[in-house]
């Protein structure tokens, strides 16, 4: 009897242990499985990316710079180029953006990149409704979107520095498009770079009040040239400024993409948007499923790029100086928006030892001390 009881007890214990082991094994298995799914990265070759642009992708300007960066990042990460779906000429209005988004979502994209700041509000709403698709948008931080921006003032600092070194006159020029924070950052970066080379350097700015207008941009360049200004920077999308400079014996820094082929006798080098490092990070975060709507990339260095120098126009010693300054910026030896910094109305913006915060750089509403002109 005792034996039977003992055997029964042992059997029951064995059953209980088996049961428990089976359960925990089962739950452990499911934990492992769920953890495995959560940890499993997407296969890069299967990642699909959608791109929405306001113009065509070979517009010779902003859209081209964005598109080329996406293509380069995809190539670097081994994503087939067929996995990039582009919808061009999307107007900055809700219906157009929503249609483009829906079309891309229907194709099963994992990531949508909006290449125009005007899409942000609409994409933010769309991203909130569909968490399966990550949306990245250039510009300021917005809810539900991965934001990205380039410290364009770093590249423009080099532009101003080079122009000031090359110019016999203390006065340089700047042909600007619309008075918007990133444009003002470009002007200020250019002016501060000029001042770094020549403490007496001044920058006359002329506003086109248009993102793309061949006539007005031509006149902007001509107006500066009429003031005996021979070296100028630009924040404009058409080749009108470089071509006007070329026809009038003046020089400029190209913008968006390498513009040397458009005006080989005028373009010293070009400031270029290089979003590739940013897009690589974004795509990687999408693949690793770590992307969130709080992500924001504000990068300089290789993102704020300059093209190769025009060897026939820029002497080697100046090229070396520019590259040295580029290195100093990268190593934080030069603090572009460091104090003391004044605006051109005499107000102190940053005191000695301080640096303008990124938030204030991104939303700046001033022109620095050595800029001639108003930002409004």
């Amino acid at each position: 009897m005792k034996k039977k009881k003992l055997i029964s007890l042992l059997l029951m214990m064995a059953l209980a242990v088996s049961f428990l082991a089976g359960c925990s094994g089962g739950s452990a298995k499911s934990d492992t499985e769920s953890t495995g799914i959560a940890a499993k990265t997407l296969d890069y070759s299967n990642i699909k990316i959608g791109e929405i642009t306001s113009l065509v992708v070979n517009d010779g300007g902003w859209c081209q710079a964005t598109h080329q960066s996406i293509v380069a990042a995809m190539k670097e990460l081994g994503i087939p180029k067929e996995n990039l779906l582009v919808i061009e000429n999307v107007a900055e209005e809700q219906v157009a953006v929503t249609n483009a988004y829906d079309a891309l979502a229907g194709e099963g994209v994992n990531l949508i990149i909006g290449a125009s700041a005007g899409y942000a509000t609409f994409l933010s709403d769309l991203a909130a409704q569909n968490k399966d698709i990550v949306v990245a948008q250039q510009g300021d931080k917005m809810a539900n979107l991965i934001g990205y921006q380039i410290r364009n003032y770093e590249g423009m600092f080099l532009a101003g520095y080079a122009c000031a070194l090359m110019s016999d006159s203390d006065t340089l020029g700047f042909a600007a498009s619309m008075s918007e924070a990133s444009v003002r950052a470009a002007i200020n970066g250019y002016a501060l770079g000029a001042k770094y080379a020549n403490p007496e350097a001044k920058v006359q700015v002329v506003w086109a009040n248009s993102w793309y207008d061949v006539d007005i941009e031509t006149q902007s360049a001509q107006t500066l040239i009429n003031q005996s200004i021979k070296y100028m920077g630009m924040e404009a999308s058409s080749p009108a400024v470089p071509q006007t400079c070329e026809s009038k014996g003046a020089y400029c820094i190209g913008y968006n993409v390498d513009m040397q082929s458009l005006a080989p006798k005028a373009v010293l080098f070009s400031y270029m948007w290089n979003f590739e490092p940013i897009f690589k990070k974004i795509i990687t975060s999408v693949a690793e499923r770590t992307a969130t709507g709080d992500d924001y990339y504000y990068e300089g260095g290789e993102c704020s790029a300059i093209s190769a120098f025009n060897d026939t126009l820029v002497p080697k010693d100046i090229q070396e100086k520019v590259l040295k300054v580029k290195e100093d910026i990268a190593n934080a030896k030069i603090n572009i928006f460091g104090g003391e910094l004044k605006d051109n109305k005499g107000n102190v913006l940053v005191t000695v030892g301080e640096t303008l915060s990124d938030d204030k750089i991104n939303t700046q509403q001033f022109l620095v001390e050595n800029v001639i002109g108003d930002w409004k």
Partner: protein
Amino acid sequence: MTAFIISICTAAIVYAVSILYAAIGEIFTQRAGIMNLGIEGIMLMGAVSGFLTVYSTNSLKLALLMVILVGALLGLIFAFFTVTLRADQTVCGMAFLIFGSGLSGFIGKNVTGIASAVKFEKIEIPLLSQIPVIGDIFFKQDILVYLMYLIVPLSMFYIYKTKPGMILRALGENPAALDAAGINIFFLRYAYVMFGCAMAAISGACISLSYTNFWNEGMTGGKGWIAFSLVAFSRWNPVGAVLGALLFGGISIIGINMQIYLPGIPSQFYSMLPYVATVAALIITTGSFRRKHTEEPAALCQSYDRENR
């Protein structure tokens, strides 16, 4: 100061010419009784066809010929709709605007932002270009500007001093009378519409072959509308169109310069000035409170139906 004045005046002429071809073409079209709102679309087609031709062949002559052919072809189609089918001219014009804008972007996509090897360069007229100030302003321009120096007086002479010009004016006032007199008004309307569209195409080519040497979608930037408004502003008179174009262009250019000389005023004000000036001039010159009759062709925008004469 002299150099500054020369620069402003030279630039004003270049700007004016780029809209004058379209404006004068539309004057002829409207004088014939047809209104074409699609000038902007046709300008873009002219710009892209000229650029594509010069990009492929490096021949400016061939490019100009292609521009004229493309413009005339579009004019032929427009005339078919408006003269033969008697379709609503406003609707057709808008359709051509959208069609031209879209098609030009499509066919020019692969050459966007690329510079062509050649463009119309400045030519200094011997002796005349050496006249102080005047020579610098008027006689150091390119061939398209020099052609306009001939087109304006020839247009005036044609419209006001020749029998075909009188018929043209009558065509826009009372086509029924001409039809009754045995004149083929349908052929004439076709011809003038094709001419107007060819001129609009040349206006577009001014931008892609002379002003610059590249193509980009929408690069005319609304000039077609300015050319259209110049027609009424000029009271359907080519010399009036010249004055209007110079007014608009001159104020645009001076406005940019004022950012330097009067920096306290927001730059957007200067951007607005040419449009304000044009609207004001339009009101003053065409407002019915000033005169008892208007020079607008009486039969403008009215399809002619012989059966209902």
